[in-house]
């Protein structure tokens, strides 16, 4: 200890107050740097094995994959995750699994993505510890504020209309994104109808990145689709960097 050796401190009286210092599971891959977060959906891949499409997406440069497949049983998801992990990790990307905290506890999955119907992020954090990634899907400012307790990042949407997310309600729009940005500190990824032509706007509105399903899963050239979106994200970031917010 820095202080003098004769200066003793009675440790028993210390209450457990230390906030866990959150180190990310891959220190080189924090959510704010992803740019693009790709969610899986094996029903959209037009017959191709999911592993092939995920591998192509990774080749295109994506850093983070969310294994969704909400219809699969725990066992089937477990086996699928086991097949995807080496593919994702060999490209130094991260794999998160949707909702299944139990899967994240049994396999070296990098994190968990929670919906508003999943366990609350603070519980997930307690189960997973400080090193794993926790993302939360949000639609409102209130949900985003609450997600801050435990989450490392949020996915906000649906921003634009999309068939995949039609069940989640009408698009919330970019103005909501700007509002959420004013209220929370976590990295925000925009989702819902994201394409290479609107990704830049989403970044300019305040998100750190975008997330998508069909833009990649259904693409004939997933690697190319990823490259196009990442390029758009990069231009959005460049516009934001040049824009000096009024003070």
């Amino acid at each position, binding site marked *: 200890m820095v202080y*003098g050796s*004769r*200066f*003793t*401190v*009675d440790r028993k*009286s210390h209450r457990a107050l230390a906030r866990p210092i959150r180190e990310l599971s891959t220190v080189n891959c924090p959510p704010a740097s992803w740019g693009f977060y790709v969610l899986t959906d094996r029903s959209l891949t037009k017959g191709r094995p999911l592993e092939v499409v995920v591998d192509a997406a990774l080749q295109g440069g994506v850093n983070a994959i969310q294994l969704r497949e909400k219809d699969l049983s725990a066992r089937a998801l477990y086996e699928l995750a086991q097949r995807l992990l080496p593919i994702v990790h060999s490209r130094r990307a991260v794999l998160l699994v949707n909702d299944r905290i139990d899967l994240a506890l049994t396999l070296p999955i990098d994190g968990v993505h929670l919906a508003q119907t999943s366990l609350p992020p603070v519980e997930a954090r307690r189960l997973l510890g400080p090193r794993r990634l926790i993302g939360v899907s949000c639609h409102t400012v209130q949900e985003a504020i609450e997600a801050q307790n435990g989450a490392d990042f949020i996915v906000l949407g649906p921003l634009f209309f999309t068939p995949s997310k039609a069940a989640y309600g009408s698009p919330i729009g970019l103005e909501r994104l700007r509002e959420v940005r004013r209220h929370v500190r976590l990295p925000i990824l925009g989702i819902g109808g994201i394409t290479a032509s609107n990704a830049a706007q989403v970044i300019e509105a305040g998100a750190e990145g975008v997330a998508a399903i069909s833009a990649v899963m259904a693409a004939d050239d997933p690697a190319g689709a990823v490259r196009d979106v990442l390029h758009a994200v990069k231009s959005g970031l460049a516009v934001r960097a040049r824009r000096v917010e009024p003070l």
Partner: protein
Amino acid sequence: MELIVNGKRREVTDGASLTVLLNELNINPLRVAVQLNLEIVKRERYGKTVLKAGDRLEIITFMAGGAE
């Protein structure tokens, strides 16, 4: 016996405990921290801590102030 309290010499009853000293000084034990010869004394031990001649005491509390 003579002690040094907050940098100043002070005469205190022989064999006095910390509680006795704080009483003599009219100090509320709930508002201070006490360091005896470079070690912090836990409040529950004030009554059992017997002072000796030459002991150096720092009695600390919260005062008005910020950067100085």
